[in-house]
């Protein structure tokens, strides 16, 4: 065995290192700056969401639900003497606008964190900016998978994802109701695709596939094509991922065409608005999954003490009816405040995130529990189901009852009538 002169070898290596001199990278660490958006008296948060336009209701209610709680906290003296202020800009559900707003919030308004964003395409658009600015984004009114995978430390999701919603629904449909023919109707954008993928994944678990896929272009109401396709496929249930206007139209037309099925909507569709638009349609079974329990309480709670959200909403925004969307906003605010409290008086963005990650089984509200960890930024995981009943979405208690109703409905349509 040749004796490797260690000296010879290291000499050679040293020579090589010396000769291949190239400019070393001069990346230096970013200098430590003071925490933006935090002063002795206030914490400033930023939000860009749809306050106007076809999704304006979603943004408005989310914000109000959150503000109800935040105002209350400020009234109590704030957190460690700091009051919370939210700067909100309207982006009308338009991604470029959302991007511009967010850049403004970060650079000009110098906010501490971003809060209460609405919509998938908008939120997804600003992800690179959030990444680069290293600013936390907490509470997004969207179940998009892109916000959860790949894991991003700066994104704090409170509401469950669409995957979780559709998986729960499909599981119930297949297992409890024995339905195998399930179609998907979706908005032709990232949000819709996300839901579609979720449904497909959920169906795959059972070895099934959507029997039909129908879509409509975002912002339009051209649902006829999709309806025809789905109706022709003989679907027994339709998973709907869209907004309330087109979804309402779809269900109406289906009813008119005599297409009976269980219409399952994801929460984002918007329960109150959908209910309003479906007044008079009673021959269809319409269910919706929710990520928060009904604002007037989980079953057994109805009639008793109103939840804090209801009370606070009544106080700060009298005239606004408690709704699912607002409750989500409220839930966002609850998580935010708890995080700020746990972060302590010496507030920093990283400290805030660490504080969030320390929350386990935090009671957000009645029937709502949020848990986080360094690997898990998905706070709430429970999915609730509601059914449209007498122009209102009420909490569903029994799937078997739904099954019976469905069979009855089908039987009613079977002889003679049925599918044209």
């Amino acid at each position: 065995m040749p004796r490797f002169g260690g000296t010879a070898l290291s000499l050679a290596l040293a020579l090589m290192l010396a000769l291949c001199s190239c400019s070393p990278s001069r990346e230096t660490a970013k200098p430590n700056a003071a925490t933006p958006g935090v002063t002795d008296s206030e914490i400033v948060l930023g939000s860009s969401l749809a306050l106007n336009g076809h999704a304006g209701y979603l943004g408005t209610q989310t914000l109000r639900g959150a503000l109800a709680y935040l105002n209350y906290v400020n009234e109590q003296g704030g957190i460690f003497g700091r009051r919370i202020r939210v700067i909100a800009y309207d982006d009308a559900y338009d991604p470029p606008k959302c991007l511009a707003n967010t850049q403004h919030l970060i650079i000009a308004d110098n906010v501490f964190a971003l809060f209460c964003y609405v919509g998938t395409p908008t939120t997804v658009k600003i992800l690179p900016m959030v990444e680069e600015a290293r600013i936390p984004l907490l509470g997004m009114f969207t179940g998009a998978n892109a916000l959860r995978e790949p894991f991003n430390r700066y994104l704090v999701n409170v509401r469950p994802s669409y995957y979780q919603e559709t998986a729960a629904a499909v599981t119930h449909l297949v297992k409890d109701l024995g339905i195998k023919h399930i179609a998907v109707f979706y908005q032709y954008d990232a949000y819709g695709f996300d839901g579609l993928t979720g449904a497909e994944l959920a169906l795959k678990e059972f070895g099934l596939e959507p029997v039909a896929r129908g879509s409509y272009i975002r912002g339009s109401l051209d649902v006829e094509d999709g309806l025809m396709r789905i109706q022709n496929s003989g679907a027994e249930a339709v998973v709907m991922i869209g907004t309330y206007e087109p979804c309402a139209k779809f269900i109406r037309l289906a009813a008119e065409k005599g297409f009976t099925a269980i219409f399952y909507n994801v929460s984002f569709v918007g329960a109150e608005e959908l209910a309003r638009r479906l007044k008079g349609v009673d021959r269809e079974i319409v269910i919706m999954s929710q990520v928060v329990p009904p604002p007037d309480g989980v079953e057994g709670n109805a009639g008793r003490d109103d939840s804090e959200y209801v009370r606070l909403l009544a106080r700060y925004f009298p005239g606004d009816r408690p709704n699912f969307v607002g409750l989500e906003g409220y839930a966002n605010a609850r998580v935010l405040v708890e995080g700020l409290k746990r972060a302590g008086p010496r507030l920093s963005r990283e400290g805030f995130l660490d504080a969030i990650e320390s929350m386990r089984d935090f009671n957000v509200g009645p029937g709502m529990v949020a848990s986080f960890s360094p690997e898990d930024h998905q706070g709430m995981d429970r999915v609730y189901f509601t059914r449209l009943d007498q122009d209102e979405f009420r909490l569903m208690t029994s799937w078997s009852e739904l099954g019976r109703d469905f069979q009855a409905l089908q039987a009613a349509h079977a002889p003679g009538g049925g599918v044209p």
Partner: protein
Amino acid sequence: MKRRLLRISLKNKILFSILAGITVVSVAVAFLTRYILVSSLEGELAQRGSAIAHSVAERGGSFLLEKDTARLLSLIYDEAKLMERERLVDYIFVTDTRETVLAHTFTRPFPDELRPLLHLSPDRGKLVRGLTLDDKDVVDITVPINEGLYRIGVVHVGLSQSHIDRLVAKLRITFLGFISLIIMILFFISNRLTRNITRPISRLTRISDEISRGNFDISLDLGGQEAGWNTSACPAYTNTDLPCWNFDDVPREGLSDGGDPERYRNCRQCLFYRKRDGDEVVQLADSFRNMVWSIKLYRRRLSESEDKYRSLFDAGPDPIFVVDLKTCSIIDANPRAVDLYGYPKDELMGKSFLDLGPESNREFLSAFRSSGAACVYRTKMIHYRKGERPFFVNVHACPTSYRGKTAMVLAVTDVTEMMEKDAQLIQASKMKSLGEMSAGIAHELNQPLNAIKMGSEFLLLMVERELSVDKGQFQEVVQEISSQVDRAAEIIQTLRSFGRKADLARERLDSNTPVREVLTLVRRQFELENIHFELRLAEDLPPILAQNNRLQQVFFNLLTNARDAVNERAATEGPEYRKTVTLATRLDNSRVLVEVGDNGVGIPDAVKDKIFEPFFTTKEIGQGMGLGLAITYGIVKDYGGDIRIDSSAGAGTTFQVSFPAAV
């Protein structure tokens, strides 16, 4: 420093040379590669940036016109952050014609370092400039946004150089790794190769060191195939008379057909010499091996030869000395010599040669030196054993070169016994001579006795007759008696000394002394026979080294012969013939001459050579033994003398004896 360089082992020398070569090549290649890579990468970068900028300019034009900054922002954001662009693009910003930034992709306020860029705008095409932003190297590419020919804005794309830096770093690491690998491989290979050279060489060095120390038994195993030499397998080794074809010269003349010497080999298959095919190392090994075998052979021959001559010296029957001519000391002696002289060997060695024979050796040495290259033979020298015991030797010396010194080798023969026999012989002869002389001696003695008788009778008579003798007369008679007694005593003394056994030692002697003494012995007799003496004795002769008694013998013999010669002539001559014997002594050069001449019958030429031979006589049987002249000759020679005859038949003879004068 240079010496240290020389002392580095071959293996390391080769390795460092290779390393140096590799290093030089690597450095060159590295710099070249880096230059090429960096310049082309920068070009690529600029091109890509330009493409992005143009894309933004193209698509953003309408947004500019509509003043839709949100869409513009969305556009540049997409261009900047999409997939791999994020690594490449550091920023993009768009300005209007009034140098107001309409949209940028920073998440912080627009950096002040970029403000100067706003002033510069390209007339057409693109503008590329390098700058530093946040301690990072950035290339800014500026492209105008035109609507037709009208400028409506400018787009700046900042490309991060870190992209390139990373590539270069990757290149560097790869290169380093590769070169290290190459070096390791080469290290290994060169190690292997040089070991194939240095190991056999080191072995050869070791072996030859051993051999130079005389250890010939070391195994010449260089490659692991040798089993050791079985020397008895080589016929030339065991028998030195048998030539080894490789070793001994094959006479060129013997190759009548101009053939290959190998054809004249004695051994069909030599077990020891060989020549294999192979590289230089193998050939060196073979050649070395052959050389060692030759040395072994040669040594064997040499040792055999030495043994042979040593045995001659040690076992030789005659005592042999080697004497250094310069220092006159004994430098070697064989066991016989040691025995003969009685000294132990270590005492004998280094002893001066002159100590062994103080009287004779010095002269012997000078005679030897002057004899040139010839050998010298000296007989009857006296040497002394340990304990000062003398004895006689014959010495035969020849010149030689002994260990580089001029020396002489002498063979010594102990002739003491012979000398004693000689002495006895001489004594016997002397007795005979004495016997011959008895009549003369008796006559010689009678005279004084008669005179004494007469004197004493005269006195008696006077007493008887009672006559008185006067004092003067009485004194005269008594004095005459006394001197006659002295005379008789002298004769007897001479006789005694003549008859005495000769002394061995030499003495400084006046030549005239033995002459005169012999004369006293023989004169009377000669006169009785009517032989006349003529004496011419020189005075002040230098002495010679001889023995009185012996010289008397010599002269007695010569005189006797002269008497016989003249008597013989007288028998045939008439009465006019006057028998004459001459005795002369003189100095001639440095030699003392004693001449005994006669006018007798002379010696015929035929006989002249023989007369000194023992037992040669011209006398009739019973008259003489023929030893006289032989003995005479011997004695003369003993004393370093010479004897010459000058004679003609019928005219007379002169014997001339010469001796060197004593120094």
